[in-house]
């Protein structure tokens, strides 16, 4: 993230005007493991480091480590909740927040973190995920059924239009609930969900996609037959990288296995870990299906009364 000199100056001033050096170091250690200001600044450990120098050094290190957003979140947290039972008034905090807003971020009170503004360009890490860090994420996989057959059967333009519409439906319902599309390869893709209620949001997006596709098939599709999809949702840890193709993750492997092996056409299949969070109403949408190892998967499809 490109940090302006103004934001850099504001951060330095905020630290130096709001807290003593040992508090600054304590905050820096919250995000940089074993942070040693003497080692980084070159000051001898036996000489007390001046407040302004400590503030400058910490600001510079936080910028270099690409942790500015996280550091500001910590400043906001101690401003609201204090530190070790002591209130700390952070100077220049409104100006710092404004600077982050210029960078396309907005503070979300619910999640207590900065996220991308909805009207700005969306990145796959919400502007929050750090390269190579491990996060608990929820993933949704979509696959168009009988892709090769459809491609052979229909004119290229019709297929291109229909697939682009399916992608738009997928994108709209994923991003509507603050999910991100991580991958799209012509006949399917993967979306990720983070933040609170990520399992519920992924599942609701999946159900929404099936309903919207039903209406699309009835009323809009240029193809003579209904486009069918398979959806799966699974949650688990994943090491984040912006290079999705190279991402290795058991969670993603399990997601694809769910979709390939347990999702019939026009079904959403979710793992038991996801189902656990569904709540008293949403759990009624699913039928359980025993699978190997004494486990279960749960399936939803749009059904009509006779």
């Amino acid at each position, binding site marked *: 993230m490109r940090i302006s000199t103004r934001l850099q100056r504001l951060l330095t001033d905020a630290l130096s005007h709001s807290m003593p050096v040992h508090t600054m170091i304590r905050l820096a250690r919250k995000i940089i493991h074993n942070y040693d200001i003497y080692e980084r600044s070159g000051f001898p450990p036996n000489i007390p480091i001046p407040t302004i120098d400590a503030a400058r050094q910490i600001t510079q290190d936080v910028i270099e480590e690409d942790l500015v957003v996280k550091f500001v979140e910590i400043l906001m947290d101690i401003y609201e909740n204090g530190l070790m039972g002591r209130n700390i008034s952070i100077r220049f905090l409104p100006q710092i927040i404004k600077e982050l807003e210029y960078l396309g971020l907005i503070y979300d009170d619910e999640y207590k973190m900065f996220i991308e503004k909805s009207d700005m360009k969306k990145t796959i890490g919400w502007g929050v995920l750090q390269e190579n860090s491990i996060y608990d994420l929820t993933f949704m996989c979509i696959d168009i059924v009988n892709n090769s057959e459809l491609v052979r059967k229909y004119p290229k333009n019709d297929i291109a239009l229909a697939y682009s519409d399916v992608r738009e439906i997928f994108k709209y319902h994923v991003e509507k609930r603050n999910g991100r599309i991580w991958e799209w390869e012509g006949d399917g893709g993967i979306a990720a969900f983070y933040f609170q209620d990520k399992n519920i949001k992924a599942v609701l997006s999946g159900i929404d996609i099936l*309903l919207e596709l039903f209406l699309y098939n009835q009323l809009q599709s240029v193809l003579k037959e209904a486009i069918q999809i398979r959806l799966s949702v699974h949650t688990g840890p994943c090491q984040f990288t912006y290079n999705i193709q190279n991402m290795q993750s058991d969670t993603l492997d399990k997601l694809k296995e769910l979709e390939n092996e347990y999702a019939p056409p026009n079904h959403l299949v979710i793992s038991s870990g996801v189902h656990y969070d569904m709540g008293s109403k949403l759990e009624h949408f699913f039928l359980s299906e025993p699978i190997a190892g004494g486990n279960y998967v749960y399936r*939803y499809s749009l059904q009509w009364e006779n």
Partner: protein
Amino acid sequence: MKVIVFSSNTNLIDLIKSKNLSVVIYAPAQMNKIINNSSDLLLVYVDSSSFNDKLHKKISFLTSKEKVYFGVLDPANEIKDIAELYFSGAVDYISKKQLKNDFGEKRFKRVFQYLEQFRIDYREEIEIQKTFTKDISHITTEKGWQEIVPGSEYTFSIMFIELDGKYDMEKIFGKKNLNVALSVFRKYLERNISYFGGRIWIWFQFGGIALFPFNGRECESVYCGFRIMLYKLMHDVEESLFPNFISFRIALLLGNVTYQENDTGNVISDSINTIFHLGKKHAEKGHFYVTEDILQFAPKPLLDFFTPAGDFEGIPIFRMRRPVLPS
């Protein structure tokens, strides 16, 4: 008027089929179900040879039904006192010989003429049907609400929506909680209705009436109602503040209304009366009903999801098949 025959006599059935008449034949065992579920005017012929000693019981049943007129087919000439049938309310009798020669469209016409001349109840029914099946002249609007001026009459899709089970709700949820939950329900409806160019026109606590201007070509209101039903379960999960799955009725018809912005509680209109009756009295809990006339302006692919649901005040109505949760 529909003509139906109840018989299990194969010779008789073959004979009737050979005449190529617009007559529907049912097995005797189906009589109660067919008659009870029908709201049409019916001319029913009962084959005496298929009922034997149950004939009198069945005649009593038919006599007790409104909009049902009956005759007796006697393929074995076994009925001794024909006049007794007329005393019981029959409007026709067909002997073995007449079955071959006279039983047909001409004969049905004679029966209708007789009913029209001598049966007051029949004449009243026909009048009601004429009133409700007459074509209303459509007063269309090309630009929707932009064109609509208060005090003038227009054709609208008129939609009635009301939550089911309203009488117990205040007791169950408490007045304040209920009002908050109801406002969320209203927002769900408003969002969907306004997306399709409609407006909630009259609102009472648990539901209301929405109007959609009619352009003479299509009724998006049917699609709107369809979507409200399709996404109802999602609304339950994601938006609704009611702790349980809610249930509501929707009724939709095409009718003329003098549009007014104020004092909507005192609207006098046949169409509004009809939609209230259809929605409040006829519609079953949790269902979406449309009249036949509005269905012809609905998106064609949606027609498969509507099934005939009898008549209401002489108007054929259809009911949407609903999305359901797995059981």
